[in-house]
C-alpha cells in the first residue's frame, strides 16, 4: 500500500511537471535567444571609443561574427541553462522567511544553498572568462610573456601572470557568489503572482527597464565590494596561481592589490560592464521563468474525456499537487468566477447521472478548508503571542461559532451536511474548548450552559468518531504544558485505538511520559532563559516580530484567491445558480468568513502588528509577500461585502448564529 501511495505521489508530481514543462522550456528558450542581443550590446559597449566613433562601431560589428564570440555565446547558453535549472529547482510559491538571525545563517550554510553558491561562483567565472575573451586587449590571457627586462640578455622568454585576467575571473566568481547570496536573502526564489493579468510580452517589457537599472546598480555595488576584498586578500590567489602554474610576476606592472593598482578607470569600467552583462543575462533568465511560471493556466471544470479527470479543477483542488499547481488552480478559480459566466455555469451544474453538485461541493469544500486552516493557525499564533506577553489568554469563547450539531442542520440534505461537518469541524473546536478546559473563563457564554454541555456529550457518545477526532484538539487548545512531541504521541495513540475505552487506557499510560516531557520542557526553558541573558546569543536567537508575522501569512495568496473565487461564485449564484446548489453551503461559507474576519481583526490588534503596509520601493526584487496580510484583510472584507450586497435582506433567512447575524447586519448596513 505504501508503494502504491508513493507511486501515486510520483505520478502527481509528474503531472505537475507536465504543466510546468513547456513553460520552463519556453522560458529557457527565450532567455537563450536573448543572449546574442545582450552579447552584441556588451561587445559594442566594451569597445567604447568616443573619439573614433566610426572605427568603434565598425570594429564592434566585425567582432560579432568571429568564431570565438560564437563559441562564447554557445558556452554562455550552457551557463544560462544551468542557471535556469537552478531557478526551477529552487523556486517557491510560499517564501521561507527566517524568523531570527540564526535561522538566516542556517539557511546560508545549508548544503543546498552551498551548492547553489558554489555553482553560481563557477558560472560567474565562466561568464567573465567569456567577457575577457570578447573584450580582447590586455585582459584576454592568463599567462603573458614578461616584458623583457633591460640589462639581462638571457633569451629565454619567461611567462608571467596577467593579473588583470585573474582579477576578472575572481570578480566573476565573487559576483556569482554575491548573486547567489542575494538570491537567498531577498527571497528571489519566491514567485509572486501579478496583481493584474497581462500578456507575457507586456510583463517582460514592463520589467525590462527596472531590470537594466537594477543590474547596473547591483554590479556597481558588487564590484566595489570585490575591489575591497581583493585589496585585502588578493595576494592569496595570486601567489597560489603563480606557484601552481609556475608563472612569474611581472615586476614592471603595478600589482593590483594596491591602491594605485585598483585606481585604474579602464579596469573598473570593464569589470563593471562584465558584471552588468552577467547579472542581466541571469536576471533575464530568472524574470522569464517567473513570468512563464505565474501565467494563468486554464483548467477544465468538467472532463471531456475520462482520462482527463485528473486535470480538472475540482480534482486538482482536492488532491495534493505541487504547490505551484495548486496556486495556479486557485488563480484560475478566481479568474473564472470573476470573468467567465460559461465556466461558472459548469461549476453550478449537476452531475449527469445522479444529479449531485460534485463540482461545487469539491470547490467550496477545498476553499472552506483552506480558510479554516488559516483561522486555526491565526488562533494558535494569537495564543502564542498572548502567552509570550505573559498575559492571560484571550477568552477564546468570544469566537461564538455555533456547534453545528446534526439537529441544527436537519433542514439540509444529508450530503451537504457531511460537507458542512467536514468543513466546520475545525471551527467548532475552539468554541468547544472553554467548556472542557476552562469552564470558568467565560461564564456569560452560551456554551457553558449545562444544557449544551449535555448536548455535546450526547453527540460524543452517539457518534464514536467525535471522541477521538476532537479530543486531541481539545487537548492542544488547552494550556500548553507539554511539548508538541507528547501531543503527537497522544494523537497517534488516539487514532490507533478505539474511542471511549481506549481513551481512558491511553490516559493512564500517558502519565509517565508526560511527566518526563514536562521535566524536559522545564530544562529546555531553563537553558533558554540562561542563554537569552547573554547579549550576543540573544542577538542571534531573538525572533523578529515582523518576520514571524510574515511567516504566518506567507501562503496567504492562496487564501486571497479562495476568498475571491468563493465570493464571486456566491454572488453570481444569486442569478446564475439554477439548481440552488450554492444555497446549501451558504451558512457554512458565511460562518467561515465571519469567523476568519473576527480572527483577522483580532490579529491586527495584537501588539507589534503594524496596521499599515511598509512602503515598497519599485525595485526588481519583489517583496509582496511582506504585505500579503494586508491584502488578505482587504479581500476578506470585500468578499463579505460582495455577498451581502448581492443577497441583501435575503441573508436574514440564512441560518447563522446570533453573533454572526449581528455581524452580518453590520455588513448589510455598511458599518464594518
Amino acid at each position, binding site marked *: 500500500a505504501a508503494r502504491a501511495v508513493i507511486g501515486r505521489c510520483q505520478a502527481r508530481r509528474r503531472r505537475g511537471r507536465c504543466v510546468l514543462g513547456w513553460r520552463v522550456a519556453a522560458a529557457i528558450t527565450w532567455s537563450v535567444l536573448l543572449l546574442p542581443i545582450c552579447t552584441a550590446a556588451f561587445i559594442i559597449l566594451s569597445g567604447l571609443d568616443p573619439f573614433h566613433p566610426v572605427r568603434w562601431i565598425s570594429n564592434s560589428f566585425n567582432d560579432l561574427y568571429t568564431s570565438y564570440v560564437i563559441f562564447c555565446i554557445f558556452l554562455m547558453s550552457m551557463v544560462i541553462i544551468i542557471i535556469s535549472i537552478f531557478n526551477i529547482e529552487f523556486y517557491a510559491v510560499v517564501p521561507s522567511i527566517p524568523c531570527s538571525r540564526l535561522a538566516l545563517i542556517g539557511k546560508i550554510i545549508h548544503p543546498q544553498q552551498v551548492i547553489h553558491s558554489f555553482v553560481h561562483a563557477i558560472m560567474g567565472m565562466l561568464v567573465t572568462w567569456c567577457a575577457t575573451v570578447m573584450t580582447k586587449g590586455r585582459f584576454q590571457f592568463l599567462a603573458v610573456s614578461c616584458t623583457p627586462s633591460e640589462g639581462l640578455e638571457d633569451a629565454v622568454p619567461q611567462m608571467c601572470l596577467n593579473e588583470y585576467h585573474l582579477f576578472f575571473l575572481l570578480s566573476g566568481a565573487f559576483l556569482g557568489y554575491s548573486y547567489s547570496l542575494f538570491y537567498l536573502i531577498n527571497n528571489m526564489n519566491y514567485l509572486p503572482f*501579478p*496583481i*493584474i*493579468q*497581462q*500578456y507575457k510580452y*507586456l510583463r517582460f517589457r*514592463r520589467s525590462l527597464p527596472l531590470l537594466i537599472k537594477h543590474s547596473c546598480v547591483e554590479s556597481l555595488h558588487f564590484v566595489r565590494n570585490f575591489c575591497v576584498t581583493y585589496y585585502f586578500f588578493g595576494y592569496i590567489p595570486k601567489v597560489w596561481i603563480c606557484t601552481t602554474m609556475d608563472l612569474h610576476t611581472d615586476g614592471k606592472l603595478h600589482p593590483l592589490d594596491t591602491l594605485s593598482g585598483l585606481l585604474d578607470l579602464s579596469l573598473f569600467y570593464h569589470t563593471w560592464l562584465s558584471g552588468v552583462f552577467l547579472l542581466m543575462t541571469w536576471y533575464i533568465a530568472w524574470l522569464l521563468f517567473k513570468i512563464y511560471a505565474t501565467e494563468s493556466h486554464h483548467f477544465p471544470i468538467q472532463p471531456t474525456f475520462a482520462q482527463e479527470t485528473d486535470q480538472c479543477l475540482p480534482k486538482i483542488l482536492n488532491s495534493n499537487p505541487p504547490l505551484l499547481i495548486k496556486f495556479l488552480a486557485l488563480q484560475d478559480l478566481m*479568474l473564472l468566477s*470573476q*470573468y*467567465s*459566466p*460559461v465556466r461558472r455555469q459548469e461549476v453550478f451544474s449537476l452531475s449527469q447521472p445522479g444529479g449531485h453538485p460534485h463540482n461545487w461541493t469539491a470547490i467550496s469544500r477545498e476553499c472552506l478548508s483552506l480558510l479554516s486552516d488559516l483561522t486555526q493557525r491565526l488562533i494558535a499564533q494569537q495564543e502564542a503571542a498572548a502567552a509570550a506577553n505573559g498575559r492571560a489568554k484571550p477568552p477564546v469563547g468570544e469566537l461564538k461559532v455555533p456547534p453545528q450539531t446534526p439537529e441544527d442542520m436537519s433542514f439540509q440534505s444529508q450530503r451537504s451536511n457531511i460537507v458542512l461537518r467536514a468543513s466546520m469541524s475545525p471551527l467548532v473546536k475552539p468554541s468547544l474548548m472553554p467548556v472542557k478546559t476552562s469552564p470558568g473563563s467565560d461564564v456569560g457564554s452560551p456554551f457553558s450552559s449545562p444544557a449544551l454541555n449535555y448536548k455535546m456529550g450526547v453527540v460524543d457518545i452517539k457518534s464514536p468518531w467525535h471522541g477521538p477526532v476532537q479530543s486531541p484538539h481539545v487537548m492542544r487548545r488547552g494550556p500548553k504544558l507539554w511539548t508538541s512531541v507528547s501531543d503527537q504521541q497522544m494523537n497517534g495513540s488516539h487514532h490507533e485505538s478505539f474511542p471511549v475505552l481506549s481513551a481512558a487506557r491511553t490516559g493512564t499510560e500517558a502519565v509517565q511520559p508526560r511527566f518526563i516531557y514536562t521535566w524536559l520542557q522545564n530544562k529546555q526553558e531553563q537553558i533558554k532563559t540562561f542563554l537569552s541573558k547573554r547579549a550576543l546569543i540573544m542577538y542571534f536567537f531573538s525572533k523578529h516580530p515582523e518576520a514571524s508575522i510574515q511567516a504566518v501569512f506567507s501562503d496567504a495568496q492562496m487564501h486571497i484567491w479562495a476568498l*475571491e473565487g468563493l465570493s*464571486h461564485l456566491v454572488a453570481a449564484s444569486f442569478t446564475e445558480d439554477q439548481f440552488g446548489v450554492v444555497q446549501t453551503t451558504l451558512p457554512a461559507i458565511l460562518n467561515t468568513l465571519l469567523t476568519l474576519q473576527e480572527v483577522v481583526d483580532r490579529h491586527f490588534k495584537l501588539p507589534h502588528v503594524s496596521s*499599515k*503596509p511598509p*512602503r*515598497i520601493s*519599485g525595485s526588481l526584487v519583489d517583496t*509582496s509577500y511582506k*504585505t*500579503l496580510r*494586508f*491584502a488578505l*484583510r*482587504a*479581500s476578506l*472584507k*470585500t468578499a463579505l*461585502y*460582495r455577498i451581502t*450586497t448581492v443577497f441583501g435582506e435575503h441573508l436574514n433567512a440564512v441560518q447563522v448564529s446570533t453573533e454572526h447575524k449581528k455581524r452580518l447586519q453590520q455588513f448589510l448596513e*455598511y*458599518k*464594518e
Partner: protein
Amino acid sequence: QLSVLLSLQLTSEDMIAAFSQAVDWAGCTVRAFAWHPHTNKFAVALLDDSIRVYNSNSATVPSLKHRLQRNVAAMAWKPLCASILAVACQSCVLVWHLDPTSLSTRPSSGCAQVLSCPGHSPVTSLAWAPSGERLLSASPVDTAMLVWDVSTETCVQLQWFGGGGVTYLAWSPDGSKVLAATPSAVFRVWEAQMWTCERWPTIRGRCQTGCWSPDGSRLLFTVLGESVIYSLSFSEYRGEMQGQVGGSKTASIVADLSETTFETLYGEERIGGEVHSMVWDPTGERLAVIIRGEACPLFPPHSGFVRGERGARPQLISFHPCFPQGALLTVCWSSGKISHIPFFFVGALEPHASPRRSPVPVLGSVREQPLFSEL
C-alpha cells in the same frame, strides 16, 4: 500633438482646471463630488482643500484634511466597502479609511494611505474597479496609468505609447472595460481582464468626457470643440474573448446639442453647445449633461432642463448610485449649493410611461449645513 506639448507647459493647477470634470474648477467652491456606491453618503471637496463627508443617517460631518491633500481633482468611494475614499491630489493619491461608526469630525491624517509614484502627478482622475479590488489613477503628464492594489500599496504601470498622458478615466459598471481619455485627439478603451487596449482617434479634439451604459456595452463620449454626443457600442462581454476589446468600427452620433431656441417657462431661450460633463443614471434611463457656458443640464431623449437659482451655474453633476424609485441627480452649483433632484419613474417595464418632461425639478439645497470649513 500640440495639445500634448501645451499640457506639459501648463502649471499643474492649470492642468487640473483644464481636465477636471468641474466646469470652473479653479474658481468654484465645490471642486469634486462623489456619492458612496451603496449608501446615502457623499463626499464634497472644497476650494480650501478640505473634504466633507455627509451622511443621511448621521449629523456628524467629518472634515478630512491632510498635508498632501492639495488641489483635489477627483474623488471616488471604494465599492463593496463601508468607507474608503480615494482622493486625487496634486502630488499623490490619498486613500482615506474612515470609520463609519466614528463620531469624530476630524479624522487624523493617520487614517490616510498615501499612494505616490514618481512622475505621476498631478492626478486628475480615479476609477475603482466595480469589484472593489483595484484602483486606477491617471495623470495628464504620465503616459502610464497606474493600477493600484491599495491594500498593499503596490502598483502596476500600464503604458501605451503615443497620445501623452491620461486625463479622464471611466470604468464600465460591469467591470469589463475602462475608458481612458488623453490630452491629444485620441482616446483608448482598455479591456480590464488582460489589459489590452483599442485606440480611437477623434477628428477634432480630445475626448472631454464619457460614460458607460449600465451593462458596459455602450460608451457615450463627447469631444472638445464639437457639440454632439457620440456613441460607441461594444460586442457583448462574455469573458471568453480574452484580450479583445470588441469595439465596433465607427462611433455614431446619437445627439446633436448645437444651439437651438427652446420655449421655457421663462420665455424663449437659446440653449446648446459643447458638453463639459455627462453622467448616465444606474438604470440606464436618464442621461444628464452640462453644456459649457450654459446654466442648464439637459436630459435627452425626452429632454428637460434644470435651472438653478439666479446666477448659479452648474458645476458638477452626479447620479445617486442606488436610488430605489428612479434616479436621483445631484447638482453642485457655482454658488456652493448642492441640490438633489429626484426623478420618479418605473424602470424598463414601462419605457414610454415617463412624461415628456421630467418631473418638476426640486430646486434649492437639501442640506442647510455650511459648506465651508470654519477656518
